[in-house]
C-alpha cells in the first residue's frame, strides 16, 4: 500500500477565518501521477500543506500508505511525503546545497557513510553534483529547482508533492525537470498551471476551485473540454497542438 493517498472530507480555515478547503475528497493509487489544476487562490497549496501535517484539517481525515496524518505519526508521514515548495528560497535554507540535501536524512538520524550515500544518490537523480557545494542563492532558477527536489528525494519518499514546479523556469530547465520527474517511480501530485506539463506527466487531472474538487478527469479529455478549462481560468498556450507537440500521447 506504499504511496497510496486517501483524502476524505477535508475542511480547513486559516486563522483569519477564511474557509479555504470546503470538503475535499481525493483517492490516489500507488505510483499514480495526478495533476492538481485550478485558479490562483483555489486552495491547492493549502491542500498540499495538509499532506504531511504542516496544516491540520478542521474536519475530515487524510492517510498516506495507510498511516493517518496525525501528530503521533508526523515523523513517519514526513518521511513518506516529500513536499517541494513553490518558492525554492523557502525550501533551501542551508549555506550549501549539499547541507540542505543532508538536512532531511539527518533529521531521520542518518550519519556518516549512510548519510553521504543518501545525499549523493539524491544529487545524482537531479544531476546536481556540479552545484552541490555552492550556496543556493547563487544558482540559476533551474538549478535551484533541481536542488529543491533533491532535498526531498534524499528522504526517499513514497509520495512526491510538487507545488508549481515549473514556475519561473526557462524552457530548457522546464524540459530537464519534466524528464527527471517522468523517471521517478513514486506517487506524484503535481500542482501546476502548466497544462502541457500536466498532459505530458500526468494521465489524470483534478481541478480545485473555491476549496473543492470540481473535476476529476483524464488529462487528455480535460484539454478537449474548453468550457471546463475556461470555467476554471485554465488556458492552453497559444498555438498548442496536442497531435504535433506530443506525438506520443
Amino acid at each position: 500500500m506504499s504511496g497510496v493517498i486517501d483524502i476524505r472530507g477535508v475542511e480547513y480555515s486559516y486563522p483569519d477565518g477564511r474557509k479555504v478547503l470546503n470538503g475535499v475528497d481525493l483517492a490516489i493509487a500507488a505510483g499514480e501521477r495526478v495533476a492538481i489544476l485550478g485558479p490562483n487562490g483555489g486552495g491547492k497549496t493549502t491542500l498540499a500543506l495538509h499532506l504531511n501535517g504542516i496544516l491540520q484539517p478542521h474536519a475530515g481525515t487524510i492517510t498516506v500508505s495507510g498511516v493517518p496524518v496525525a501528530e503521533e505519526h508526523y515523523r513517519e508521514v514526513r518521511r513518506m511525503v516529500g513536499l517541494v515548495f513553490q518558492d525554492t528560497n523557502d525550501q533551501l535554507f542551508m549555506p550549501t546545497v549539499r547541507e540542505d540535501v543532508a538536512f532531511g536524512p539527518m533529521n531521520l538520524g542518518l550519519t556518516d557513510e549512510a548519510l553521504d550515500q543518501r545525499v549523493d544518490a539524491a544529487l545524482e537523480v537531479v544531476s546536481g553534483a556540479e552545484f552541490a557545494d555552492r550556496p543556493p542563492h547563487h544558482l540559476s532558477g533551474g538549478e535551484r529547482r533541481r536542488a529543491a527536489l533533491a532535498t526531498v528525494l534524499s528522504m526517499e519518499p513514497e509520495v512526491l508533492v510538487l507545488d508549481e514546479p515549473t514556475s519561473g523556469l526557462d524552457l530548457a530547465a522546464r524540459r530537464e525537470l519534466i524528464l527527471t520527474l517522468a523517471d521517478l517511480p513514486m506517487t506524484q501530485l503535481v500542482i501546476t498551471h502548466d497544462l502541457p506539463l500536466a498532459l505530458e506527466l500526468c494521465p489524470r487531472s483534478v481541478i480545485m476551485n473555491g476549496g473543492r474538487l470540481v473535476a476529476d478527469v483524464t488529462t487528455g479529455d480535460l484539454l478537449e473540454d474548453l468550457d471546463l478549462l475556461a470555467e476554471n481560468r485554465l488556458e492552453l498556450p497559444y498555438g498548442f497542438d496536442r497531435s504535433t507537440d506530443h506525438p506520443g500521447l
Partner: protein
Amino acid sequence: MGAGHSHALYVHEHSVVHRMAPQAKLVAALGMVVSIAITPREAVWAFGFYAAVIAGLTGVSRIRPGFLAVRLLAVAPFVLFALFIPFIATGETTEVLGITVSVDGLWGTWNILAKALLGASVSILLTATTEIPDIIRGLSILRVPALFISITTFMIRYLELIADELGRMRVAMTARGYDPRWISQARPIASSAGALFVRSYERGERVHAAMLARGFTGEMPMPSTEAIDRSQCAGVLMLVVLFAGTAIVALVAT
C-alpha cells in the same frame, strides 16, 4: 558576484591561508583581535609590528592591498568620530598646524584609528580566505552553541534575500516617482520597513514549514567533525603567541 563565490567578501584564490582549517583561522583571528584590543595605545611600535604581520599575511593570502583598502572603508563611519576627539577632549593641549588640540584627545584618536583598522583588517583577511559555510563549520567544531550557529546560518542565508527584497521595493517606489530627498517623504520609507518586516516574518514561517516537512524537530542536526593537522596548529599557535606576546610586552613596558 561570480560563479562559485559564496559571498561578496570572499576572494577566490589557492593560498596556504585559504587552505587552512576554518576553526584554526577563527582561533587565530580571535587571538589577534584580542591582542590588538588590549595593547596600550602608547606602544606605537607594537601596532607597527601588528601591521607588518598583517601585511605579510595579506601577501601570503594573495589578497590585493587595494581589496583590503576598499573593505576597510567600512569602518570609516566609526573612525570619523575619532577625528573629533582632540577637539572635544579636555586637559593638556598642544598645537597642530596652528590649531589648539587636546593631547589626550590625540592619543584617543590614534587608539581608535589603529585598533579599528588593524582589527578590521584581520576580519577582512578571515572572510576573504574562508567561505561562509566553512566559517560556520569552524564555529561548530569550536563548540559554539548550536542555537547561535543556527541563527548565524539563517542570517547569512537570508540577509542577501532581504537586501534583495528591500532593493526591489525601492525600485518599485522609484518607478512610481518616489524621490526620497525631502524629510516629508520619509513616510514611505518607514512603512516599507514595516512591509519588509512582515515579508521577512512570513518568509520565516514558510521556511519553518519547509523544515518541518523534512522532519525538523527543533534541533539543528550538525555534521560530524573532522580533525585538523598539526602543521596548521603550529601556524595558528605561532601567530597567536606572536600577537599575545607583543601585547603583553607592550602592557608591561608602558
